[in-house]
Each structure stands twice: as structure tokens, then as C-alpha cells.
């Protein structure tokens, strides 16, 4: 299947060779934004002026004979929880009203260093808490493939931007599936790298031990290119893996001959029949390409959702404490400091954020810590053990990315638990810190894309991408 828009790989090559100018590329995507952004609402901020200026500067460098780098002239959309110097970074929350970071996230610096052009900041569920981008203080994003449907979340704006051709590449963050689930819903490729592979410096924290920045792209090769640019050690992030990132693109065509592929029984069971059917077809395709495919059981992954909804809110309750009205963002006055704090937070946070802060505060409270947070961490350890055991017998694991295709707006907003179930297949990789990615693999009965998830052990991105590339090539 060929992508409907120019790829990042192709665009960068054309710009570097002088076949196209960066300015032309930017104008092309901005034109699409002009046509469809009104109905989709992928962006919180469109940076048309900055993008044009950056493109012109790149074109001048190219004219002088310089090479701006592997993403020369490629438009990129950034999830609006990535800090951009002097540009509002809202996390789609009222509480960060008016705040402009004085610094760029490490990934933003690396994109600039590779010649990419940032075209805008994309919508998300407030502070990345949600699975549909309906929890944005600035209104929902709609799925470009069917605007009655959600794009998934929390990185729904980034997924929609790539699907709508607003940018060939986008960055999101994935704490429990927030890149992979919206990528699946919007029919694009989405990657959650190994925890520590990409610096979190400048990513506004939701749950620090789970958060990881990763790429959205229309193709597996584009996603690999973007990941290679943003990955690698960063001294500003203590949890960043040492050493340079492993090359991925160079090994994309190595195939799957002899690879051992496990289909995770617990994650296939209970998903929609059409979704399961596409996963089975993907497994058959891998077997046809020479992989050894078998089912594998990871009994504890079914507890991942429960563990996640203790660990992530607990960390969030602490990470979001700083939004107190004292230093930046919204301030609602009160009779004293405590009243000001409470009034600010009451007015600034949406319902889902408040729900999770309360959940997390409770989970960490004296007398409850061990029963909730402590127990969840023990479950996390068991899930890691299950993965480790599975990876003794398999090189990669495969599952659905989400139990369903994109649902309609409003379908789950009144039922948080039903919404949380959207992430049941993606959460285990976050808990384990392992890489996982999704790519579109056919459609469901409703004609909307189905995502297949490929998981690998820590630092297993090269093999994971090889499998994804084979699946991509096998699609009709």
C-alpha cells in the first residue's frame, strides 16, 4: 500500500538534492492544513510563520552547499506536551494558560539539528490522560478517516496530523498506549521506544516511569528515520540509556526468516472479532515470510491495566502538584496561599485529570501505600518476568494494538472504565519498559483501520522494525 502523501524519506532526499525546496514542502502541508484543520482540529497551535521562516533558512543553507541533515525540510508536528522555547506548550490544559517554556525539549533540539521543520503543536487529552483526545480543554480532535470518530488518544492530534497529511511525521508520548492506540485508530505507524531510548527532557511529565516519546509516520521506514534522529543518550535525563542508539533503517530489509514470533493469547482473547482476524492474518503473513509463529501465554498481562491505573495516577499526582498558581500559568486568587492553590487547581484542571490526581493521592496515602502502589509495583515485576520468560522462546510478540477500531465521539466519555479498556493491549509494554509499535493492517467491519502491535524486548527496536517492515510489505 502506498502512502497517500509524500514520505519523510522521499521528502528529505528531494530537499537535500535540491529537487524541491523546504519552502515548497511547507506550503504544501500548510495548504492541507488550511483545507481540513477546521473540521479535524489536530493542532492547538499552527506555526505557519515559524515554519516558513525555518524552511527559508534551510533553503539558504542548501543553496550554500550545506547539508541540513537527515530530515532536511521534513515537516513535523509536535504533541503539545513537548516544550518549545517561546511557543505556548499547553498540554491541552487551562492550567498552563499563557505559559511559554524558556527552553526546547531535547527531542525538539535534535529535530532542528536534523533539518526538520516544526509546523505546529498538536492536541491531546489534557496532560496525556485519556484515550480519545476528548479530554482536551480546547475541544476534541476528529479522526481524519471518519470525522464522527475519535482519533484515539492521548496523542490524537499527532496521529490525525499524519493521517490528514498535515505533516509526514509527528511526535507523541506514550504512557499506556498514547502513541500506538491513536496511530491504530488513524491508520498510521506509531512507535513507543524502549524506556530510556529517547530523552524525556522537555516532555511535560504524566507518569515518569512510563512516559516515553516516540514517532508517528505514514510508513515504517519514516518512523525508523525519525526514531534514529531523536534516540540516543541525553545527559539531561538520568533515565536515558547510555551510548548511541542502534541503527534501525539499515536493517529494515533483513526480513523475518527464522525469527520466532509469539502471538500473545491473553491480548487476542476478548478483542473484536474483526480485529482478531486481522492479527491472525498478520501472523500468517509472517509465517509465510519464513518466521516461526506460535501462540504464547503471558498470564499476568491481564493485570496490567489495574497496576497501571495505580502507578500512573500516583506519579501523576506528584508530577502535577507544581501547577499551583505560584510561578506560571493560571492563577485564581484566594484568601491565602492554600485557597489560591485550591482555586487555581479547581479551575485549571479538567475532570479526568482531577480523577487521576485523586486516585493517585489515595494510592500513595499513609496506610494505603502498600496495598495499592506497592502491590501495583509487585504486579509490574511479575509482568516483566512473564515477558522475560516469553522472550526466552520468542524474538518478538504480536497482538492487537486496541480491542476495537476507532469509536464515535462521546461513546465512552461517560464511562471511564470502558475508556480505560482501550489501552489494555498497549499498557504491558509501558510497565515492562519494552519497545512496541503499531502499523495498520487492513480494516475492520466498519471500514476503519485495524492496528497490529509488534513488541520486542528492551533495546529490540531493530528486530521489531524488521518485523513491521515485512508486515507492511505484505499488506494488499
Amino acid at each position, binding site marked *: 500500500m502506498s502512502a497517500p502523501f509524500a514520505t519523510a524519506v522521499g521528502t528529505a532526499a528531494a530537499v537535500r538534492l535540491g529537487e524541491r525546496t523546504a519552502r515548497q514542502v511547507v506550503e504544501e502541508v500548510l495548504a492541507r492544513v488550511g483545507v481540513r484543520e477546521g473540521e479535524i482540529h489536530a493542532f492547538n497551535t499552527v506555526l505557519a510563520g515559524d515554519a516558513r521562516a525555518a524552511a527559508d533558512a534551510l533553503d539558504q543553507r542548501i543553496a550554500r552547499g550545506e547539508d541540513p541533515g537527515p530530515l532536511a525540510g521534513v515537516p513535523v508536528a509536535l504533541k503539545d506536551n513537548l516544550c518549545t522555547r517561546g511557543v505556548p506548550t499547553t498540554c491541552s490544559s487551562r492550567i498552563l494558560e499563557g505559559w511559554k*517554556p524558556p527552553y526546547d525539549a531535547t527531542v525538539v533540539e535534535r529535530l532542528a539539528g536534523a533539518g526538520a521543520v516544526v509546523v505546529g503543536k498538536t492536541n491531546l487529552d489534557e496532560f496525556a490522560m485519556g484515550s480519545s483526545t476528548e479530554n482536551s480543554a480546547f475541544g476534541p480532535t476528529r479522526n481524519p478517516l471518519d470525522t464522527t470518530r475519535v482519533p484515539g488518544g492521548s496523542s490524537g492530534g499527532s496521529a490525525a496530523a499524519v493521517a490528514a497529511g498535515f505533516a509526514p511525521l509527528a511526535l507523541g508520548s506514550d504512557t499506556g498506549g498514547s502513541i500506538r492506540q491513536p496511530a491504530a485508530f488513524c491508520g498510521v505507524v506509531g512507535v513507543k521506544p524502549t524506556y530510556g531510548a529517547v530523552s524525556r527532557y522537555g516532555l511535560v511529565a504524566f507518569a*515518569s516511569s512510563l512516559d516515553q516519546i516516540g514517532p508517528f509516520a505514514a510508513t515504517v521506514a519514516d518512523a525508523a528515520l525519525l526514531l534514529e534522529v531523536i534516540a540516543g543518550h541525553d545527559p539531561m535525563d538520568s*533515565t536515558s540509556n547510555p551510548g548511541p542508539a542502534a541503527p534501525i533503517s539499515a536493517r529494515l530489509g533483513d526480513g523475518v526468516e527464522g525469527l520466532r514470533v509469539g502471538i500473545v493469547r491473553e491480548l487476542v482473547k476478548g478483542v473484536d472479532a474483526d480485529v482478531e482476524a486481522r492479527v491472525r492474518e498478520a501472523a500468517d503473513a509472517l509465517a509465510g515470510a519464513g518466521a516461526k509463529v506460535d501462540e504464547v501465554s503471558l498470564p499476568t498481562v491481564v493485570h496490567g491495566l489495574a497496576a497501571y491505573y495505580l502507578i500512573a495516577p500516583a506519579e501523576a*499526582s*506528584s508530577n502535577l*502538584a507544581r501547577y499551583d498558581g505560584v510561578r506560571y500559568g493560571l492563577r485564581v486568587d484566594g484568601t491565602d496561599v492554600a485557597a489560591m492553590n485550591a482555586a487555581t487547581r479547581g479551575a485549571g484542571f479538567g475532570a479526568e485529570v482531577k480523577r487521576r490526581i485523586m486516585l493517585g493521592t489515595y494510592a500513595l*496515602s499513609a496506610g494505603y501505600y502498600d496495598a495499592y502502589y506497592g502491590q501495583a509495583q509487585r504486579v509490574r515485576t511479575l509482568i516483566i518476568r512473564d515477558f522475560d520468560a516469553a522472550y526466552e522462546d520468542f524474538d518478538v510478540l504480536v497482538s492487537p494494538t486496541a480491542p476495537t477500531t476507532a469509536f464515535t465521539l462521546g461513546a465512552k466519555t461517560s464511562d471511564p472504565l470502558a475508556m480505560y479498556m482501550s489501552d489494555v493491549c498497549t499498557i504491558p509494554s509501558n510497565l515492562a519498559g519494552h519497545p512496541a509499535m503499531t502499523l495498520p493492517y487492513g480494516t475492520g467491519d466498519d471500514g476503519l483501520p485495524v492496528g497490529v502491535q509488534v513488541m520486542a524486548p528492551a533495546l529490540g527496536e531493530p528486530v521489531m522494525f524488521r518485523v513491521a517492515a515485512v508486515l507492511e510489505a505484505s499488506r494488499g
Partner: protein
Amino acid sequence: MADPEAGARAYDIVVGLEVHCELRTVTKLFCGCRNAFGDEPNTNVCPVCLGLPGSLPVLNRQAVEYAMAVGLALSCEVRPSLFHRKNYFYPDMPKDYQVSQYDEPINVDGHLDLPDGSVVGIERAHMEEDTGKSSHVGGGGGRIHGADHSLVDYNRAGVPLVEIVSRPDIRSSAQAVDYVRELRAILVTTGASDGKMEEGSLRVDANVSVRPAGSDTLGTRCEIKNLNSLRSLGRAIDHEAARQWDLLDTGERIVQETRHWNEDLGRTVAGRSKEEAYDYRYFPEPDLVPLAPDDAWRDRVRAAIPMLPAARRARLCQAAGVDAALAGTVVELDLDTLVLAAISAKADGRRAVNRAVNEVAADIDAARRLDPAAFTKLLLLEDQGKLTATQAKQVLAELLTAGGDPVDIAAARGFEALGDDALAGAVDAAIASNPAEWERFKGGDAKVTGFFVGLVMRASGGKADGKAVTALLRERAAAG
């Protein structure tokens, strides 16, 4: 009010101290901002120490080394450790949590030996980040309640601290003061701290309780904060103990609470009440990795620790034959190296100590420039009777102000001790020409001693040794 010092005390004081020590690193604990006192407010700040969204901490290696050095100097076990988040809302804390070590601190189970021979256990010495500093303006007397508005300076936010927690082994305000003085000396010796209590480099909280004399159960304690000097510490403990004993004496109950020392009122006042007690919701800081110093690193830190005050005192006691208190004074003045150099060149130890404590210490800045060889040479001249005490002091004063060779200085001043015969002659001459005064002296009137010594001094041009003159006068009087 009961007087804790009055007669046989009816109660015992039990004190445990928590000392917050700012580490003397170049940069802060988790970022590259300058760690400096007294700069323009909010100039040493960055996204990390301001806790801006998206920022992350990176641990300062020098801070870890200072923390290990403190632990090792206090005979602690240095262990693998973890950082936790201590969650509570306060405007001078940028993230609304403090990164601190909780149940797995870097240093545990040490002790501090005081100059008087007593030993105070050290429960732990852990690392944490300092908060910013609030000032409350208008009304409220500098407290947040009642203030018109508050200003926050985040220069101090993220400055590395080591909190040293003693066991409740301290039994008097004097011992508490000794403990802090000794601890400060150790912290300065290791290089971890500048020891400046007045700048907040060392901040002391005291947990004080009382119990009937001889009892071995612990009473309910109060934590006293805001102790900015050794004087405040001593006074606060005595007053708080007396307050508690008065309560018990009248059948009242002591409420466990935080109290603040008010230096002007000379008493402790209640701080935040029990209802506001925080649940800090500690959990491991996910933005940092566990800290596990290997043996080699720990050994390097240990090897780099200079000799500690207790060892220096012991060394001086033995070398100079002086008591611990006097040795302590010399070490505190940092003059023990000077004294030991003289002793090793066979100078008299006691004399060396006395000259150091009395004359050299009088001008401590000049003392830092004093040539140890010249000091030694001077002491030997005095030991050999070539200079009188008076002459030696004058030569030493010139050594301190101008330097030079003691022999040259003595010669230039015409100093040479009076020979025995010349001295006897001068004394006899003075007696012969003042028969009335001599009769009074023989009659036991000590007041005329000075009269005769003065005469001999004048006659000898100041070369006579006053003590020798007095001795001769007594000898003559005894002989009739």
C-alpha cells in the same frame, strides 16, 4: 519557672538533633546553577531548579562525594541509596515535592565522639535538596499568616543538603552545643560545609523531651526549629525543657508539636498545629536512578578526608602533654600544625601551646602567615634561657607583624637574658638603696614586690626575667 540548673534536678533532658548542612558544591544538587549565598534573588535559577514542566534532575557527583565524606567522618555505614519524593504544597518549593532520601539513605549508624569523651549516636545522614526562601511582607511579623504578600527567592532551591540526624543521646544543652560545635568542625574539615550558621549553611532543629530523673522511658517530644546560633540552641533547649517540666509538674500533658524559638522573647512558641499534619506520600523518585557507590569510589573519598578534629586533639594531647580542653582550643584555632612542628624540633610542648593560644591566636590572620620554622626557633631560644618570657613575647609580636628571624630581631632589640651574677647584683643594689621598703617586704607586704621588680627591670634595661627577680627577693628575705 523551674530552673534546670538549680541544685539536684528533678528531671532529665533528652535531646536529639537534626542538622541540615548545605554542601559547599560549585553547583546545585540536580542542575548546573551556581550554589552561592547572597546573590541577587532569582538569578541562580534554570528550568530544573524552578521545577518547570518537562525538566528533569541529574545528580551532582560532588554532592554525593561530600555526603559520603560526611558519613565516613561520622563512622557511618555508606550504603546503596534511593531518592524519594516528599510531597507537600509550599510556595518556596518549586515542584511542590522535595527530593530527599527516605528509607534507604546513603549513610546510617554512625557516631560522634565529643571532646568530653561522651558519644552521640548518628542515626542517619541523608541527602536532599534545599527549598527556596520566602519573605513575607507587611503584617504578620514576618510570618506567612497575616502577611500582605510574599516574595520567593529560588536561588536556594535545589542547593544540596545533608541532614544529619542524631539519636536521642544528648542530655544537656551544653552537650547539644558541644555536639553542634564538633559536628561543624568535622563538616568544615571534610570540605563539605563552610560551617556558617549565620548564613544558614548549618541549620539545627532540636527534638526535646523531659522525663523524671533516672527514668529510662522517653517523654513526648517537641521539635524546635529556627535555631540560628549555638547560643539560641542552648537557650532554647533549656527553656523548652523547663516549659515541659512545668506542664508535667502541674499535671498537664505535653502535646507533640513543632515549636519555633523566638530569640527576642527568649521562649519557644507553638508552630503548625496537629490538624495540619502532612501525609507526605513518599514514593521513589522515578526521574533518578538508584545510587550505588562502589567500594573503590568510597575508598577514594575516604582517603581524601583530612585528619579529623578528634584525632588532631588526641595527637596534640600526647605530643604536648596538655589536657584535652587546651588541645581542643589549639585545634579549633587550627594552630596544631604549628605547635607540632615546634615540638618535633624539641621545643617544650606546654610552652608551644601557651604561646600559640595566648600570643599567636591574638592575631589569627597574621598567624596564618607565621613561619613555623621561626616560631620554633623562638621557642627554643626561650627554652634555652636566651630570652626571657617578656622578651620572647615581644619578638613573637614582631614575627607576627613583620616576619623575620627571631635571632636577628632579638639582637636588634639588644635582648639577651641577664646572667645570674648580674641579676643578683642588680637585686642586691635595689635592696641596699631602699631599706624601708625592704623591711616591709620582709614583713610579708607583697605589695612592694612590684616596686623591687620594677627597679631591677629599669636597672637592667628590661633584660631581667621578672620571675627570677621575685625568686631572688624571696631567697634574700628568707636568708634574713
